[in-house]
């Protein structure tokens, strides 16, 4: 039995466990439907209080998602304590499973590195499993530090799909690197890309959640689990934090890529499809940042741009690798 075998075993198991975690979180959302509609009075009070304090800016650290829904929870707890307890149980189960899945995928990445005897970022498969470790790792830290459990469903879905695609579609057996990858920039460029990509993904998931929540708020149909999610303004802010963190890092990724390209291919910028789409992604996120400070564009439109940015990131990663031939094609995939 080789490291490569254990790596595959751990990663396939992680997909299963992430899928179970996703089911647990789905059950969490489903049981939350039984909580009934919150008393509108409670919501009014929260909003009025926020307005009185000056557009709600007084609230503590916006990352701290535990603050806002207290009034709602109290209202709900009165109407259906059993359902409330079940929501809590499923949520905890989801997080516990996510932790197990995370440990399995970390083990998968590490044994893959041992099997290959190099940093495990030589192809799409290895990049995906590493990026998923960053995504879930960041999520778990936020659950622990800031009570961000409401992000559980989208994150576990992303992790299950990401690692699932990796072990099925993207999988390639362990092999050494082609000479173009023998460079210190291999570490710098790819790690930066993986971390920025993880942050883009988490930020993008939150932008989607923002749109859902905002729509429900505007229509006055905030029901079920959506009530446990912080208000849309707060989601927008957390999403912005992730994207604002990712954007300079992505800038650095592109610059580092350009420097490496000079060493490996003899030019800084050659409009290779991957380079082009990295720039397109960069420009879309630049749009996002500008939109947030332009009247009429903040909020819903900015969130939509962030989602387009995420789509562009994914197209660059999956579409360009599989559909278009370019210099970034390594190892078959």
């Amino acid at each position, binding site marked *: 039995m080789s490291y490569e075998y254990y790596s595959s075993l751990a990663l396939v198991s992680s997909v299963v466990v992430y899928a179970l975690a996703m089911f647990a979180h789905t059950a969490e959302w489903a049981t939350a439907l039984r909580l009934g509609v919150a008393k509108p009075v409670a919501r009014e009070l929260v909003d009025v209080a926020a307005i009185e*304090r*000056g*557009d709600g*800016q*007084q609230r*503590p*650290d*916006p*990352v701290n998602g535990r603050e806002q829904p207290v009034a709602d929870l109290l209202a709900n707890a009165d109407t259906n304590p059993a359902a409330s307890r079940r929501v809590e149980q499923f949520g905890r189960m989801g997080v516990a499973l996510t932790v197990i899945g995370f440990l399995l995928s970390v083990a998968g990445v590490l044994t893959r590195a041992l099997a290959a005897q190099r940093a495990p970022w030589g192809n799409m498969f290895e990049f995906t499993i590493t990026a998923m470790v960053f995504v879930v790792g960041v999520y778990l830290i936020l659950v622990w530090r800031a009570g961000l459990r409401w992000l559980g469903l989208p994150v576990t879905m992303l992790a299950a799909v990401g690692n699932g695609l990796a072990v099925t579609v993207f999988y*390639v*057996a*362990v*092999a*050494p690197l*082609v*000479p*173009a990858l*023998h*460079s210190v920039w291999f570490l710098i460029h790819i790690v930066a890309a993986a971390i920025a990509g993880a942050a883009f993904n988490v930020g993008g998931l939150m932008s989607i959640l923002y749109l859902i929540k905002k729509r429900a708020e505007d229509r006055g149909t905030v029901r079920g689990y959506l009530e446990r999610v912080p208000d849309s303004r707060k989601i927008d*802010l957390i999403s*912005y*934090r992730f994207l*604002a*963190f990712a*954007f*300079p890092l992505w*800038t*650095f990724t592109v*610059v580092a890529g350009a*420097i490496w390209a*000079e*060493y*490996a*291919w*003899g*030019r*800084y910028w*050659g*409009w*290779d*499809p991957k380079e*082009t*789409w990295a*720039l*397109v992604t960069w*420009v*879309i996120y*630049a*749009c996002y*940042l*500008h*939109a*947030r*400070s*332009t009247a009429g564009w903040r909020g819903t439109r900015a969130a939509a741009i962030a989602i387009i940015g995420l789509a*562009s990131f994914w197209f660059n990663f999956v579409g*360009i690798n599989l559909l*278009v031939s370019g210099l970034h094609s390594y*190892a*078959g995939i």
Partner: protein
Amino acid sequence: MTTIKTREPAAESGKAAGPELPRLGWRGGLRYLWTQLTSMRTALILLFALALAAIPGSLVPQRRISPVRVTDFINEHPRLGSIYDTLGLFDVYNSPWFSAIYLLLFVSLVGCIVPRIGVYVRALRARPPKTPRNLVRLPAYAAADLADGDHDGLDRAAAALRKRHYRVDVHSDSVAGERGYLREAGNLVFHISLVFVLIGVAIGVLFGFRGTSVVIVGQGFSNNLTQYDDFSAGARFTEADLVPFSVSVKDFEVKFETGPVQRGAARLFRADVEVTEQPGAAPRPEVLEVNKPLRIGDTTVHLIGHGYAPKVTVKDADGNVAFSGPVVLLPQDGNFSSIGAIKAPDARPERLAFEAFFFPTAVLNDQGPQSIFPDALNPALFVNVWHGPPKVETGRPENVYSLDTTGLRQLREADGQPVRIGLKVGDGVNLPEGKGSIQLDGWVRWVKLQIGATPGVAISLIALGFAVTGLCLSLFVRPRRVWIRVRGGEAGRRVVEVGGLDRADARAGLTEDVAELAAELSRRPEDVSAR
């Protein structure tokens, strides 16, 4: 607006605009255009346009990247191809519309940034705004009782703010503090840096050059225009800019994956070369690898390709050697099936020419010979033979990699099939009809060197460093205003009030900071200093 009447064109444009609108005049019109161009909304639209415009270049083949694929595309889709060609879709990144978008974007950027620099300089000298009457109305507010006998509360408040890097103004009953000036500085630095990045790129395009040269192992390259296989340079480049160095390739080592996974993938390219920096200088040995280019002054030499050059000897019908030496063939696939032409124009009485197919690891199957591995494990050369009357030397350059068969006739067997000769190393074969002979003496590798210089790149890289730093400052520095007031409370107690306001997105911890300030100030001075 009265002066406008004396200006004919403006009056006309005023009419054209319709009677409802106020007349702007050309000056006002320009100012209007300028305001529109430099607005954030326009910048947003231009950014979108840039993202959209960059996309077709990644999906449609580009002339500057893969000219062969462009030709293939036009041959396959003649009508679509000509439409694409007219629109510049085969050269997106040099097309007028793409250039227009990014130039407008940069004009918009400059127009936005220049006034903001003035605003920022004034803001740098400005004092923090006066304390609002009602601190309770600020987004964050905290109040605490001052300790008894604490009379220097305001001084300590000012000190506490200064310690937290606020700019502080002390008023009669309150203190005003502001911090986070670096945010706008970072923002300006980022945008200005982008302009410098573009300037650096422009210098590189104007003064730079790039070319490639195929060098057979054992031979060399010296840096003058005649030695380049292809060469492109900027408008301001002159031949005198070429540094007169030379590189001779002593040895070239290649390794390919032989294991079951990714069999045939490249594992090592290493060329041992000798570099002579200028004529007469002592040559120094260097190792040239992928990711390890040679740098000679501003010029870089990259190893960007390799291939096979079979060594052949061609004798003519008279038995004289008409050609002898290595012939560079071009690889066609990952297993280095290579094609090219062997030409013996000096063969007499008839000149000879061969279409050459080289397979480093040759196998024969139904489709004919092919290569199944990129390394030379079982090299074989296959040739078709052409012959014809001697050609007058015209001195006109011709493609060394392909055979122009005008004036030539293909040698055929009795049954009409073309004569096809397969050769292993050391094999020699006499041509039919006594036309002569061809022998495969061996093979050598060749390397493709890319020689180029990109002046101005240092400007771009330094500017990018500044850009990333500025970006981080503009995203992570949080401008914040804090006011602290000491007032009389109930029962003769004195109360310290702290109010705070964040001036940018992603605010965090304002409430905590304000509460902490209030708590710190309410403690006895000795308690604070004792900590």
